[in-house]
C-alpha cells in the first residue's frame, strides 16, 4: 500500500541553525514527491516538488529536498532557519496517473530565537 512516513512529529531548532526534516515513502514505482508547509490557521503552500531528473530540488523560501531512490526518502533541508519558518511541514506522494496526494502525518517545527 502507498504510504508516507514522517518520523519526527516535533522538531525544535534555534534560529540560524540548519534543518533537516525526514520523509520516507512506500510506493511500487517512483511517485511524484512534494513538500507542503502549513502555517497556523492557514492552508497548505507548496514548497517544492520532484518529478524526475536532478535529485536535488530547490524550492521557495530557501528550502531544498533530495530524492534518494535507494532509501525511498525525500528529506527537506534548509541551511539556516528563520523564526518565520515555524509551521507544520507535510511530505506527500502522488501516484503517476492521478492528482491524488497521500500525505504524511506532518512535522511541527518550532524555532527559538
Amino acid at each position: 500500500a502507498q504510504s508516507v512516513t514522517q518520523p519526527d512529529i516535533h522538531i525544535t531548532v534555534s534560529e540560524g541553525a540548519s534543518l533537516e526534516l525526514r520523509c520516507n515513502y512506500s510506493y511500487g514505482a517512483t511517485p511524484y514527491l512534494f513538500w507542503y508547509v502549513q502555517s497556523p490557521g492557514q492552508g497548505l503552500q507548496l514548497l517544492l516538488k520532484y518529478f524526475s531528473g536532478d535529485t536535488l530540488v530547490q524550492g521557495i523560501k530557501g528550502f531544498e529536498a533530495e530524492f534518494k531512490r535507494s532509501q525511498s526518502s525525500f528529506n527537506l533541508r534548509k541551511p539556516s532557519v528563520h523564526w518565520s519558518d515555524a509551521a507544520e511541514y507535510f511530505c506527500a506522494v502522488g501516484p503517476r496517473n492521478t492528482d491524488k496526494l497521500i500525505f504524511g502525518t506532518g512535522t511541527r517545527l518550532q524555532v527559538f530565537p
Partner: protein
Amino acid sequence: DTAVSQTPKYLVTQMGNDKSIKCEQNLGHDTMYWYKQDSKKFLKIMFSYNNKELIINETVPNRFSPKSPDKAHLNLHINSLELGDSAVYFCASSQEELAGGGNEQFFGPGTRLTVL
C-alpha cells in the same frame, strides 16, 4: 485576491444537523478537491472533481455529498453530522499542466467544523 476561498471559516453545530461548506477558486483551474484534516493533523483526500465530474471518491460515508455547479465551485454538503466529523476541511484546486498527475494543488484556508 484570494485564490481559493472557503466559507465559513468556522462552523459549530449539533449532532444530527445538516451543513454545507462552500469553496470557490478564481484561478481558472479545472480540478478541485476536498481534504479532511483530523485532530492529529492527518490530511486525507475525500473527493476530486474535474470540470464538474467526479474523479476521485475515497471511502467517505454517503452522508458526505460534494456538488460542483461549475468548475470554479465545489461545495461539500454533510448530512446527519456526527462527532467524528469534527475536523478541518480543506478545499484545493489544480490545473492539469502535466498529463498523468503531479500538478500543483492550491489550498484554501480551511473550514474548522466542530460537532457538539
